[in-house]
């Protein structure tokens, strides 16, 4: 290797890999999330295939055993929730866009930022490596309820696999906390001149609230993991009740409480849901306003509802525990706080509808995905108040009805938010110092949107019906239920009715996954050959489209020294000559004229 090569290699490591540049770190997070989402999707397809064709042997593996199915459930949930829905919107687009949107040239703590990314990457590797240890990956779901998760002999994946799962999530919790501290400090202290709190784009409010939730929630998860780890290895009994008999092993000792883990876990787990969805909500507001050429309807209310959703989000964890032996009075209280969150959520939906109402918007792909977000959020949200009733939840909790609910409102809405962000910000994602940003192909994008929307509804709407018909979650197999009469036993007969619909769901899921190939193709093609984007392709008003924040334009726009904000975002006007928009960074023309006339030194 010549010295020049060595220098180039070193500069590659410095500039692309171990960099503290927030834009590169953002892209790294997004690539990590893309890898994770691909793995998570394949796992979900395996589950769907196994449910309807249980005898199909997985190549290179053999038949899928019940414990394999549970491992698929666990790793699918963990990967999707932590490494896709938490990582991509909050850390990925947060790093890529957030500093520019508040007029800052960087994050507050660049080194901490890079450290968080690498911790997240190690956490993902740790999680994936658990597949290859003896016994395989953990099988207790992404919630890891004790006592089974506390006892190594409880199942094949509960020994080394569970330890690696705990280590991975602990690492992820530390990384997320560090990343959120960074985001909070950046938003509070690095805003440019004129960027008051009310002028912050709603995306920034989404990131801000999600970061606050992360700081509060993730350390509680970390404490819970520490306690569970002690239960597993130090002989303590925080979560293990005395006389607990698992797989022939009797636990003697203190009076631990498995319900305590549920409290600690869901105190984290429910805010986690909002961490995943709040940035998408903010983006939806901004994208809808941008392409409708309108102001966001009730901007201040939208800020308030974002914070209110965050606040209520930490008060309603108990609604995950209605059937876990929670005191009925506590259930009522959690039911009320859960219903209360419908208020700010409904206010958000009304604002989205009012923003677009009769506005003849430009239907770009980003706009379509934002509208899809609204649609999925409503569809998934409507089942929320149903599940918030302890009585109804008792029947529905362990059925596919819940699976349908959270996949529509969190997974699909979250993914649609991510797609809206990708199509919207792709020019900023691809811009480099030497090359302007590119746009993703719009025709392909529209195909991608409609196929994905149809696939999402075709997959997850029928799950409501199979759930209502009694199909349980976490069951590896729906056919051949043991008992008197085999498949014709009462349970077998019940489940056999859901099989045709399950077959349909599996086909739809495969269709939905295949539709994403359109996106991947579009992504790869547009990276190289996409249309070169103009400096502000969407006529956006927010600061990330300022020339100084576009790496390609920044070199030529070096005369711009002070970046200042003069108004709230989404300043669109209709005039006889057409529509005009005024970005946040343009000074007021009236004030400017008044200034000029005031300081004009020439006499009349």
């Amino acid at each position, binding site marked *: 290797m010549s010295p020049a090569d060595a220098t180039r290699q070193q500069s590659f490591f410095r500039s692309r890999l171990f960099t503290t540049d927030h834009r590169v770190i953002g892209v790294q997070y997004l690539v990590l999330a893309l890898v994770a989402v691909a793995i998570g999707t394949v796992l979900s397809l395996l589950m769907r295939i196994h449910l309807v064709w249980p005898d199909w042997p997985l190549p290179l593996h053999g038949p899928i055993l019940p414990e394999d199915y549970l491992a698929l459930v666990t790793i699918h949930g963990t990967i999707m929730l932590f490494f896709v829905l938490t990582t991509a919107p909050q850390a990925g687009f947060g790093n890529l866009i957030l500093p520019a949107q508040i007029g800052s040239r960087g994050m507050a703590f660049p080194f901490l930022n890079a450290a968080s990314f690498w911790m997240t990457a190690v956490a993902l590797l740790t999680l994936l490596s658990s597949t290859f240890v003896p016994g395989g990956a953990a099988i207790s779901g992404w919630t890891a309820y004790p006592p089974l998760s506390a006892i190594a002999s409880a199942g094949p994946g509960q020994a080394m696999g569970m330890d690696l799962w705990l280590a991975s999530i602990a690492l992820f919790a530390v990384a997320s906390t560090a990343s959120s*501290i960074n985001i909070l400090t950046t938003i509070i202290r690095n805003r440019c001149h004129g960027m008051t709190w009310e002028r912050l784009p709603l995306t920034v409010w989404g990131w801000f609230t999600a970061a606050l939730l992360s700081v509060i929630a993730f350390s509680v998860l970390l404490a819970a993991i520490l306690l569970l780890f002690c239960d597993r290895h130090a002989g*303590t009994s925080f979560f293990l009740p005395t006389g607990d008999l698992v797989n022939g092993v009797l636990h003697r000792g203190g009076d631990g409480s498995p319900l*305590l883990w549920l409290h600690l876990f869901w105190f984290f787990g429910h805010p986690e849901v909002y961490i995943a969805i709040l940035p998408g909500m903010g983006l939806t507001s901004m994208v809808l306003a941008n392409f409708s050429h309108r102001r966001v309807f009730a901007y201040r209310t939208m800020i308030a509802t974002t914070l209110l959703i965050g606040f209520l989000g930490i008060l309603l964890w108990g609604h995950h525990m209605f059937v876990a032996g929670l005191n009925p009075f506590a259930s009522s209280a959690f039911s009320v706080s859960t219903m209360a969150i419908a208020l700010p959520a409904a206010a958000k939906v009304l604002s989205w509808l009012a923003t677009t109402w009769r506005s003849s918007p430009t239907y770009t792909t980003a706009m379509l995905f934002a509208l899809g977000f609204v649609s999925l959020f409503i569809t998934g949200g409507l089942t929320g108040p149903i599940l918030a009733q302890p009585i109804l939840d008792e029947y529905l909790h362990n059925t596919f009805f819940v699976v349908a609910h959270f996949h529509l409102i969190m997974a699909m809405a979250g993914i649609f938010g991510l797609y809206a962000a990708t199509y919207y910000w792709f020019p900023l994602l691809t811009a480099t110092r030497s090359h302007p940003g590119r746009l993703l192909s719009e025709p392909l994008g529209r195909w991608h949107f409609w196929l994905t929307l149809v696939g999402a509804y075709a997959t997850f709407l029928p799950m409501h019906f199979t759930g209502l018909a009694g199909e349980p979650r976490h069951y590896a197999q729906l056919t051949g239920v043991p008992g008197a009469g085999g498949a014709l036993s009462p349970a077998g007969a019940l489940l056999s009715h859901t099989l045709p619909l399950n077959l349909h769901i599996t086909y739809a899921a495969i269709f939905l996954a295949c539709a994403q190939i359109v996106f991947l193709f579009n992504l790869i093609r547009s990276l190289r050959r996409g249309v070169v984007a103009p400096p502000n392709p969407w006529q956006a008003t927010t600061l990330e489209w300022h020339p100084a924040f576009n790496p390609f334009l920044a070199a030529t726009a070096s005369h711009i020294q002070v970046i200042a904000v003069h108004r709230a975002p989404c300043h669109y006007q209709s005039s006889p000559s057409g529509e*005009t928009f005024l970005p946040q960074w343009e000074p007021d023309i009236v004030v*400017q004229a008044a200034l000029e006339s005031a300081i004009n030194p020439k006499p009349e």
Partner: protein
Amino acid sequence: MPATITPNKTEPERKRRLEDHDNGSGRRPPTDKRTGGGGDGDNWNERSRGHRGPYERLHRYRMGIFFALASDLMFFVAIVSTFFVNQSTGHFDAYNHYVNEWLPTAIPPILWLNTAILLLSSVTMEIARRNMFRETDVMDEWLGLGKPITRRALPWLSATIVLGMLFLAGQWVAWRQLAIQQIFFRTNQSSHFFYLITGTHALHLFLGIGALLAAFTGLYVSRQLETRQILVDGAAWYWHAMGILWLFLFGLLAFFQ
């Protein structure tokens, strides 16, 4: 066709700031006499709301530490709530009697001494921190008249490190004393919590001593006054927070068992 309203660009004019002692002759002294910043090469006056000034940097780090401590507080809140839940949890025995087997762990008396040592270390740390921001010393350092800040702060910082290590040694003695009485981490529900709480707190103090050592090294190595101030200031707030936290945890272990 939509159009952007493009206003005229006015040439930003560089102005002399008489109020900042800018006599136009070259290097300017620091205007922020507490942090030694705002002088020449620090573009703080040129920016309407700069983010590279010493004040901003110091406060940015303070805020980061504040959020980290808030998150850490939630960690201990979770553990303490677990303590109360497990303390009140019992089970039904074979005769259908409800039994609560909580056996309070009597704390070793040396913890009182440790608490006093930790409080004292917080005092010495605060003196060290305040010495970093004395106006006259900051001006002396800026003018190159020796290193009065380091000279004043270093002894107090060293005292804090020694006291901190003494506290950790005291905790070790407490654990040994319990172990001699055959009380270990796994012995009973209450001892789980004694070791867990003191252990996680000791781990935090261990990291705190790391921060203090970093500040100690920084006082020698770092050429920038602001960096030295940030190191000592950050370590100090972390140290104070751990001291206050210990008061609560100690109160819990001593009086709420």
